[in-house]
């Protein structure tokens, strides 16, 4: 299962690369720089997916106290942090040539940075509490409260004045995107989701081994 996911993810990412660089035309206004979108947007969507899983698994853990839920929350949290980091870095690289700055404290960028810090804190907390059961309980509370920030990040560009443009994906209005660019984005989105599932499945297996060694 894990191996299959790995191959599917690899194929998807190759297809995404081909679509992003070989198929989709450059953007009329931004030129080739716009292709960073094919990494930037799937990254944050994957991070949303990961943190939504943390929320569900944390609720599951608090109600059932089964280790399986905790294992899922922890693993998804780790991967979510990686993809949020990727979003911040790719966004910064995209921002310099288009906006003219690497970083600015507008609501979207600030709330995304906070999202990153919340889940870094979530992982730190897990490492700090020695008692496994207690650590899992505390982390679950943070995993639930932290999810409040996900809609804030997404809708920040609609609620406040920002430098960042409004959302193209998951937007209340239909996205003004050429079909070829939209298709390339979709392929990359699916590829990133597959990569996430592969990493998650790997990490879950690893955690199971860790637990066996500790027991």
């Amino acid at each position, binding site marked *: 299962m894990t191996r299959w996911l790995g191959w599917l993810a690899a194929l998807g990412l190759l297809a995404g690369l081909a679509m*992003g*660089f*070989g*198929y*989709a*035309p*450059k*953007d*009329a*206004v*931004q*030129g*080739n*720089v*716009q*292709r960073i*979108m094919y990494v930037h947007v799937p990254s944050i969507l994957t991070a949303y997916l990961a943190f939504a899983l943390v929320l569900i698994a944390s609720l599951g853990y608090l*109600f059932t106290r089964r280790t399986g839920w905790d294992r899922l929350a922890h693993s998804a949290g780790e991967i979510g942090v990686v993809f949020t980091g990727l979003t911040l870095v790719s966004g910064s690289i995209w921002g310099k*040539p*288009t*906006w*003219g*700055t690497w970083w*600015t*404290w*507008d*609501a979207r960028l*600030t709330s995304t940075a906070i999202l990153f810090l919340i889940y870094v804190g979530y992982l730190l907390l897990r490492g700090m509490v020695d008692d496994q059961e207690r650590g899992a309980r505390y982390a679950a509370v943070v995993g*639930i*409260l932290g999810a*409040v*920030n996900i809609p*804030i990040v997404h809708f920040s560009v609609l*609620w*406040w*004045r*920002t*430098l960042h*443009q*409004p*959302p*193209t994906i998951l*937007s209340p209005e239909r*996205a*003004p*995107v*050429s079909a*070829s*660019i939209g298709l390339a984005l979709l392929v990359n989105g699916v590829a990133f989701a597959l990569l996430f599932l592969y990493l998650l499945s790997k990490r879950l297996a690893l955690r199971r081994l860790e637990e066996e060694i500790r027991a």
Partner: protein
Amino acid sequence: MSRRGKFLLGGGVIVAALAYMIYAGVSQSVVYFVTPSELRAQPVAGKAYRLGGMVQPASLKWEPRSLDLSFTLSDGKTSVPVRHKGTPPDLFAEGRGAVVEGTWTTEGYFKASLIMAKHSEEYKAPHGDEAQPGYKELLKTLKGQGNP
């Protein structure tokens, strides 16, 4: 009420309060940029502002030798003249959105220290010959004929 019910209710209240506090707090205190109308309403000379608006058509002047940039930012009702020394970002152009950081001067213009260009959430293929698939663009770039 069961223990679980109380927990759910309490948790729900905390989450709702937290969400509201963040929303209300940020709405009030974090105005990322002021509009030309808001700046004109109560301008304070020497105070640092971020000013956002549309670069008014036919207002943009740039001296590539001295790097003197001047333009007018407008919100449709009011406009503010802006001056800057430096090179604007590539996407900065007339009829597009921009956010500038700087101070209001007593001489009646905005002295910008940083120019940022806004871009829209539209992603469209260019028209005509330019609208070629990416691999042709890539080949051109590899041969050193494409633009970055």
